């Protein structure tokens, strides 16, 4: 390239940001590979993606940086986490090698691949001059991207959009449960139906609460003392509750404080108190 173009200096701020974020991004990548816990791996990946987002912003591509953070870090990685969290907390990678020598081979091949790509990129960009993106944007970064997307690359853009829509719809179709339309009554229909037929527009009464049972299987009592079968949930066998004898009146219980045991010692004010 031209020699004067090569004289473009990288600003101090950019250099500082690079030397801080570069190691962070690299650490994120390594942490992602070496973490045993899947969620920790995902978090390390988030670190790398965030650093990349900031890199884009520094490289005069603020829109790309924001999109990177909003779409990749914000939406896609959260969905990843969503799935990983469903897997369970204690599911870590097994340390047992199922294929003999797999780790070593993978390490060697990985390092080799990295060297290959790194060397290739280094060779390709060796003589290139840094010209920055200042004038590549034309009328600003956002406007330039919009212009390219909707003129030169409009077909690719539309095709990608169509592909994604098809994928999403396909996933929906595959996971959908076939249900005959109108076969399931919703809350609204049930509520209306209840008012049309039943003499009970509201919900069914709850089970009984006794001194010795508050189980859902304990039926509530009707005014005449019979257990009410309606109060027991469907699918539960009604339980016989051992009743407390019902003491009545002051004669047996003494003062209210004594009966509740709230006063200590209870004042000697009744037959029950006398007996203590």
């Amino acid at each position, binding site marked *: 390239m031209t020699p004067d173009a090569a004289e473009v200096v990288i600003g101090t701020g950019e250099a500082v940001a690079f030397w801080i974020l570069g190691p962070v991004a690299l650490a994120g990548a390594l942490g992602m590979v070496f973490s045993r816990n899947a969620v920790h791996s995902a978090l390390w990946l988030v670190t790398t993606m965030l650093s990349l987002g900031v890199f884009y912003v520094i490289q005069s591509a603020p829109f790309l940086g924001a999109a990177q953070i909003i779409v990749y870090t914000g*939406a896609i990685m*959260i969905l990843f986490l969503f799935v990983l969290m469903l897997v369970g907390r204690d599911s870590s990678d097994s340390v047992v090698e199922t294929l003999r020598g797999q780790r070593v081979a993978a390490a060697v091949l990985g390092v080799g691949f990295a060297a290959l790509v790194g060397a290739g990129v280094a060779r390709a960009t060796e003589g290139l001059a840094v010209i920055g993106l200042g004038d590549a944007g034309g009328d600003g970064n956002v406007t330039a991207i919009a212009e390219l997307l909707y003129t030169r690359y409009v077909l690719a853009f539309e095709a990608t959009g169509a592909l994604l829509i098809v994928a999403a719809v396909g996933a929906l179709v595959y996971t959908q449960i076939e249900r005959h339309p109108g076969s399931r009554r919703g809350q609204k*229909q049930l509520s209306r*139906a209840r008012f049309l*037929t039943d003499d009970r527009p509201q919900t069914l009464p709850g089970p009984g609460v006794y*001194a010795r049972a508050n189980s859902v299987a304990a039926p509530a009592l009707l005014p005449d003392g019979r257990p009410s079968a*309606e109060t027991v949930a*469907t699918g539960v066998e009604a339980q016989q509750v051992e009743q407390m*004898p019902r003491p009545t009146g002051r004669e047996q219980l003494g003062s209210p404080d004594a009966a509740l045991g709230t006063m200590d010692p209870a004042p000697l004010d009744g037959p029950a108190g006398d007996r203590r």
Partner: protein
Amino acid sequence: MNLWAASDQPTLEDFGNDVWWIVLIKVVGVFVVLVLMTLFAIVFERKVVARMQQRTGPNRVGPRGYLQSLADGLKLAFKEDIMPALADKPVYFLAPVLATVPAFLAFSVIPMGPTVSIFGERTPLQLTDAPIGVLVILACSAMGIYGIVLGGWASGSTYPLLGSMRSAAQMISYEIAMGLSIVAVFLYAGSMSTSEIVAAQADGNRLDFFGLEFTGPSWFAVLLPVSFVIYVIAVVGETNRAPFDLPEAESELVGGFHTEYSSLKFALFFLAEYINMVTVSALAATLFLGGWRAPWPISIWDGANSGWWPLLWFFLKVVAALFVFIWLRGTLPRLRYDQFMRFGWKVLVPTALVWILVVATMRTVSREADLSTGEVAIYVGLPAAVLVLGGLLLASRSANRDTRLMAEEASAGAVHASDPEPDVLPPAGARRRPTGGPSRAEGGYPIPPMDLTVPPSPRIRRESTDTGTAVVSTGRRGTATIEEDGDA
């Protein structure tokens, strides 16, 4: 607009060349404003909700109880910091920080006023701005989700996990609706920078309605009402506020994602939630309510939009938006989760998409055909509105009809229309729910027995064994008494 006012409106070139101490003042200022707004919002919320519920609200600490949240914050700081045994320690520690930092960060691009003079330096009342200003806020709110999701996961407990799962799904869904609602604003303002969006709402909207010229309102809340409504609904979901507070629904999930948190970590979550509320309120003011510019009757006064006055208009708008949040909380019951998600995906997102289409069409038509505002409204806006309203009318009629038919069908079949579907729950033993229960006429509903008495306290037994008096029975004094006296 006169020259003085024009020079007050900051442009993108005004940012990024402040002296370092100005930047420092602004950073500290934003921090202080957010913390103060949080303290204020908590007391304000409690007082307003109390008034709505015919209560007094906090009235003990400070004048008229206004220092209550400060006292609560101090108390929170001195509480025991609990680390659950099953917690994933680094992530558990990181989560509240991840929730709080983006919340603070988002406020940095909110314009709070015009260019003012601070110690002789002329600088905009806004920490910074970028061509993608609003996207910075969206990115920060996207990062804030991590705090909640990871906090719930790292607690190692079921309820927080459920809360964080809910919040992950909810916040992503509602962020889509929120982003789509803002698109129309971008189209009208021609920019994504917050200060330029405020500038776009600056001075009236010259309308030409078939030769009749007048100046209409220029707030995007008036020009783009559908966007505004969608934004308001979406941010309530995005900030996990009632009626969309499903991640922390206390009747279902104890405390939701922060159940296991205490002390300062919990305080950070609390802070983040309220700061997010303030931020989205400020963004609503910026995008839809004219930003820091004075509302109409005040804006007649020339000095209203210069100097430090706009700070007042801005915070009045923010407090008004906060009041709406509180109002919603005081009024509406929490939605069921499936209804909530259905509303987001099947109502908000499609409506926002159709609305963007309409807005873009109107703008294109007015540009291509060189029509005036009134003509565009007549030729494009009116047909579109009629089409949408007609569609909604038809849909609601058909839905009502379906409901009626289904209800009649259901009522014709069973005595109890609410019987669960047979495949949901198998009948227990030989018994299904009997249909022959007592009817309303027969004697009404189960009620507690009229002579219900509270059983004696078990503490009495302990007391009697301690004293070692000659009680012959099992120690239950009540039982013994009754056995002697017999049931009356």
